[in-house]
């Protein structure tokens, strides 16, 4: 299996290089002068000349690319033109929000989607099955941004004075400022601890800041539900169809002929096999979640990678665009690699190769 991992890793290297190149190219191709975009009216020709010189924008393109590659490899993603801070700092600040959102959505999608798929699949063509599949069909067709807005309306306006009311935007209630764990525990302040402290819910949990935790949790519900809907529907459908496939196979017939109760047949014999494609789906869903995060964060006003990336694109802050897109794409590659690994672990037939 180590060899498999190595082989997979090596074959992703050209892809990663390709990603870096594509990101670099795209960022460079964005129309508009970064100097003028960053400095606005203050940008005169002389200032811009100096600006370009300073940021190496006058060098030939392949030199710029070479420098860029080196920088990326050493973890230097440049400085944001708009904020004037290193891109990595922005990343540290905002990535956790997106991860929390995506993780919550994925968890929701799997916890609800898989059992629904199993129930549907084991009761083929029954009423439950039909209803669930109709629901899944609708779920898969709903635009995330529409669902988000509708949820906002229902829970923040329609149910405003009921116990079901939920806040429609933001990460925390206004005025609530969480204390980072490194302050509470008197730990050194560095990139890693800052990064970890931005996981608001986890941070609040381990430092017993219950009010913060509750606020963060409640603010996460609507965006997570909105984001989770499409992946949930996909996972439910895939689980169901995979289960139905497997239930028609010979070894399921053998399991029944052995005298196993139907529950055992489905949950032990069929499911282990049926879940294999679903694991791969979950990996792919990650891509959907990242794309959806851009929309969700915009609607719910969450300062995560998605929203920041989008704002950066609009404002031509192209170091941020480069850096964030790179991180997103590479994490997608890593997630899929992990999924492949998991798949190999779960399926003995693949291990042999």
């Amino acid at each position, binding site marked *: 299996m180590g060899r498999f991992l190595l082989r997979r890793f090596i074959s992703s290297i050209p892809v990663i290089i390709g990603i870096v190149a594509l990101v670099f190219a795209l960022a460079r191709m964005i129309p508009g002068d970064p100097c003028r975009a960053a400095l606005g009216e203050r940008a005169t020709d002389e200032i811009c000349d100096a600006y370009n010189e300073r940021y190496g924008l006058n060098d030939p393109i392949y030199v710029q690319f070479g420098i860029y590659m080196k920088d990326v490899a050493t973890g230097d993603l440049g400085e944001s033109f708009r904020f004037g801070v290193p891109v990595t700092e922005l990343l540290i600040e905002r990535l956790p929000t997106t991860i929390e959102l995506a993780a919550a959505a994925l968890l929701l999608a799997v916890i609800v989607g898989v059992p629904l798929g199993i129930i549907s699949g084991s009761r083929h063509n029954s009423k439950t099955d039909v209803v669930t599949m109709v629901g899944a069909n609708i779920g898969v067709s709903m635009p995330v941004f529409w669902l988000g807005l509708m949820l906002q309306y229902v829970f923040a306006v329609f149910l405003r004075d009921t116990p079901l009311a939920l806040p429609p935007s933001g990460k925390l209630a206004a005025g609530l400022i969480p204390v980072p764990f490194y302050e509470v525990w008197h730990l050194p302040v560095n990139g890693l601890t800052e990064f970890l402290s931005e996981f608001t819910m986890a941070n609040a949990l381990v430092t017993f800041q219950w009010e913060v935790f509750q606020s963060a949790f409640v603010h996460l519900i609507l965006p997570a539900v909105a984001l989770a809907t499409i992946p949930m529907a996909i996972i439910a459908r895939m689980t169901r169809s995979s289960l139905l496939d497997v239930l028609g196979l010979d070894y399921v017939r053998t*399991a029944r002929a052995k005298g196993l109760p139907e529950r055992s047949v489905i949950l032990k*014999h069929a499911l282990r096999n049926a879940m294999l494609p679903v694991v791969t789906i979950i990996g792919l869903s990650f891509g959907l979640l990242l794309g959806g995060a851009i929309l969700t964060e915009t609607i719910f006003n969450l300062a995560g990678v998605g929203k920041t990336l989008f704002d950066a694109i609009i404002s031509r802050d192209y170091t941020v665009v480069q850096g964030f897109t790179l991180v997103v794409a590479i994490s997608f590659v890593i997630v899929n690699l992990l999924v492949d690994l998991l798949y190999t672990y779960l399926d003995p*037939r693949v291990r042999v190769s």
Partner: protein
Amino acid sequence: MTVQASDDPILEISGLETYFFTRDGVVRAVDGVDLTVGKGEILGLVGESGCGKSVTSMSVLRLIQNPGEIVGGSIRFRGESLLDLSEKEMRAIRGDRISMIFQQPVGSLNPVFTAGSQIAEVYEIHEHMTSKESKARADEMLEKVGIPDAERRAKAYPHELSGGMAQRVMIAMALAADPELLIADEPTTALDVTIQAQIIDLMREIRDDLGTSIIIITHDLGVVAEIADRVAVMYAGEIVEEADTKTLFADPKHPYTKGLIGSIPVAGLRREWLDVIPGRVPNLIDLPTGCRFAPRCRAREEAGLTICTEQRPELRTVEGEHTVRCFLYQEEAR
């Protein structure tokens, strides 16, 4: 052959009717089948694909699923009516008192579990053993069916096994709880000829040593000739002939049986044409009135019989234990 003639048959199927209710019509897969299997007897059930032999065996274990249904007849196992049992009672019988093995042994084993664990599972459900005990018994079973280095093999996954090995594992699984009846559905069809011989020998040993009755379902007359005590020939959902093996091959009565036996190429025998049965198996939804084999029956043409297409012949005794379903042997036809 040590056939123990016994008064009480282990399995008695009478008038079994299993139909499939599909969108295109009702498929009468098994349409009035009578079969008996004695204790320690090996019954061969022969016929082409689609004649209903597999459906018959699946009906015995009540493994027929939507849109299929057993609509009539009775199945008695040791005197007990299987069709009246609850699902829970039926489960106690499957794998424990009646077992089944299938074609494509590698595909019939769960790919994510080891061979040993799948055998051990039988002990766990039917004999409530602990996992340690059942594992030990599973290893024992693997040795009994002739797999060398059993303990190591038990840890193998099905895709790592050869076809013959996998079939032995299936047999081990089927015999684990010492069943009284083993139903073998095309057990050798997917295997190489040399391996086939080994599996057949193994099955004979099982009957000889353990006294297990066996129903062997196959389209291969060679297999049947090798191992079966009695043979029943099925066509389009019905039994058309039944006799002990020697008699069937020496003196086949039904034109279909004759055709089957006649179409076996014999090494060394020179002929101009391979004798085949013309025509095709009838559509089980749209069955012809009268004898189901009539459209393809050369003997009917030669004898100039008209009753064959008008009435359905019954299964009648021709001599001793030899029964045939054919108007050629029935007085009224003349």
